[in-house]
């Protein structure tokens, strides 16, 4: 049976144009972009082309504001730790939210072990942070505000534009982890008003192992990887040229097809949410899909556990993710789902369904049919479900 990927948040295919460009680049035997020879200069030129493509995707004014990294996590580490190190004389306080990705949480945790203080602002039940709460959390010591653009578990998009008005007024650096937004929804760093923006290539059908950090000119930040003068002294080490070429092509395609992709994905998301009650009952849709990512539906199905659902769906040919504690190495419930007020049992039955541009309406209805049978058979053996039925 062919597999239908509804788990694009974990992995997406490379678009044919991206594949071709990367294969050509491998065959071409480019030099080192930092070398002063012909092969090196040629490499520097294609690197700059890719930089232009990525700058175009997020509307960066200057290509030198784009720094290539090895993935979104490195970008986030660079942004947070780089700002903390460069601004140690100004203060040691960081403001963030309680639903950030682990790359943000752990970077900040590391800094707090080294003397930084942190205020983690709570989100509401839809997973949205109130900009007023960010404003209240800021102190004279605050050097950085880091708020994700969209959440990778529930798809909520944060009011970054409003938050940037606050940070600009108070002259505090604003970083946004936009890994699941860039290339998926229109992102304009001028409109958002961010100083730093982290992104990666794989969410928009580029290769894994390539990411980037937008650094607005004038932002006070130190590198965290020291060495040569690559990436304008912001990130030492020879660039992953083949990957970056793929990222550039994927960025061009994302810019070109953004409108049609968003409306296609929004259509699949709407269909899934609209049809779901015809197939299963007793579930929650998490987040705020109408105002969130167009390619993500988070659904908590009551009385059953996510890993079981995922295994059975896989058997039927559908790949999705779960936020169940049992499916994670740490056996811990998702901090995002806890933060929006789910109880442990409901968090256990949470699926994250992320269609991609190649998915069709038939994929969604096929998935729903499969899910219907699975929910029924797992509920039949669930003591929670049978208890609920017995007590009404």
């Amino acid at each position, binding site marked *: 049976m062919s597999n239908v990927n509804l788990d694009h948040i974990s992995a997406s295919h490379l678009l044919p144009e991206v594949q071709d460009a990367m294969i050509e680049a491998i065959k071409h035997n480019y030099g080192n972009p930092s070398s002063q020879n012909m092969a090196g200069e040629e490499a520097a030129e294609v690197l700059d082309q890719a930089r232009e493509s990525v700058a175009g995707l997020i509307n960066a004014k200057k290509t030198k504001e784009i720094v290539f990294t090895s993935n979104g996590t490195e970008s986030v580490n660079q942004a947070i730790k780089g700002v903390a190190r460069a601004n140690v004389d100004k203060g040691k306080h960081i403001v963030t939210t309680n639903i950030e990705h682990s790359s943000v949480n752990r970077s900040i945790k590391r800094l707090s072990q080294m003397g930084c203080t942190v205020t983690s602002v709570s989100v509401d039940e839809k997973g949205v942070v109130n900009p007023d709460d960010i404003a209240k959390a800021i102190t004279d010591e605050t050097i950085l505000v880091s708020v994700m653009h969209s959440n990778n578990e529930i798809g909520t998009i944060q009011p970054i534009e409003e938050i940037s008005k606050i940070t600009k007024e108070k002259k505090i650096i604003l970083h946004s982890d936009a890994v699941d937004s860039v290339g998926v929804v229109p992102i304009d760093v001028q409109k958002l008003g961010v100083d730093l923006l982290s992104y990666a290539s794989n969410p928009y059908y580029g290769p894994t192992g390539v990411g980037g950090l937008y650094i607005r000119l004038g932002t006070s930040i130190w590198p965290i990887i020291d060495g040569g003068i690559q990436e304008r002294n912001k990130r030492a080490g020879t660039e992953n040229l083949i990957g970056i070429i793929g990222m550039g092509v994927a960025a061009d395609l994302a810019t070109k097809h953004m409108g049609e992709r968003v409306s296609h994905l929004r259509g699949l998301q709407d269909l899934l949410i609209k049809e779901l009650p015809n197939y299963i009952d007793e579930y929650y849709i998490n987040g705020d899909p109408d105002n969130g990512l167009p390619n993500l539906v988070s659904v908590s199905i009551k*009385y*059953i*556990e*996510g*890993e*079981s659902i995922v*295994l*059975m769906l896989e*058997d039927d040919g559908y790949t999705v993710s779960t936020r*169940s*504690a*049992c*499916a994670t*190495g*740490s*056996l*811990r*419930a998702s901090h995002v789902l806890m933060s929006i007020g789910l109880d*442990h*049992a409901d*968090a*256990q039955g949470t699926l994250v369904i992320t269609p991609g541009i190649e998915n069709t309406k038939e994929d969604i209805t096929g998935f729903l049919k499969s899910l219907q049978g699975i929910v029924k058979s797992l509920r*039949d*053996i*669930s*003591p*929670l*479900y*049978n208890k609920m039925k017995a007590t009404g």
Partner: protein
Amino acid sequence: MLYSKTVMEHFKNPRNVGVIDDADGVGEVGNPLCGDMMTIYLKIDNDKIDDIKFQTFGCGSAIAVSSMLTELAMGKNVEEAKKITNKDVAAALEGLPKNKLHCSNLGADALHMAIQDYEDKKAGITRPEPRREEGKHGHSQGEACLCPYCDAKIKEHATFCKACQSELDEEH
């Protein structure tokens, strides 16, 4: 694949699912942190397990453990069934991933509680509910804590795994 063929087979086709309305013994075990819950029902005739059924809320391994456990216990007399251990269940399933071993603890614990419930009833002892809540940790008391990254044994509340140099949260 994370699970053995036997685990997958029992997960997909679980044996002895259901409720015994006039059960002679019931055992219910829950783990609020990991979220697994298991109920075992026993019908006992002449100290022999005549029928056993289960209901489970949990992951693939929790369901497979329940199913295998019922197969191991079916037809055994009570004293034999008491001797079924977590390790027996895991071995019959051709092994479980280390961080899922607590699921097999859940299974044997539920069976032993159901037997206890039967023996209590026989002896005229009444308990409020045949149920036990597990502690916060994902394993039974006395069993080792395992590093979630490399499965090495670690001390309770350790914040660093010496085997793989990973930092750990305090609860693991």
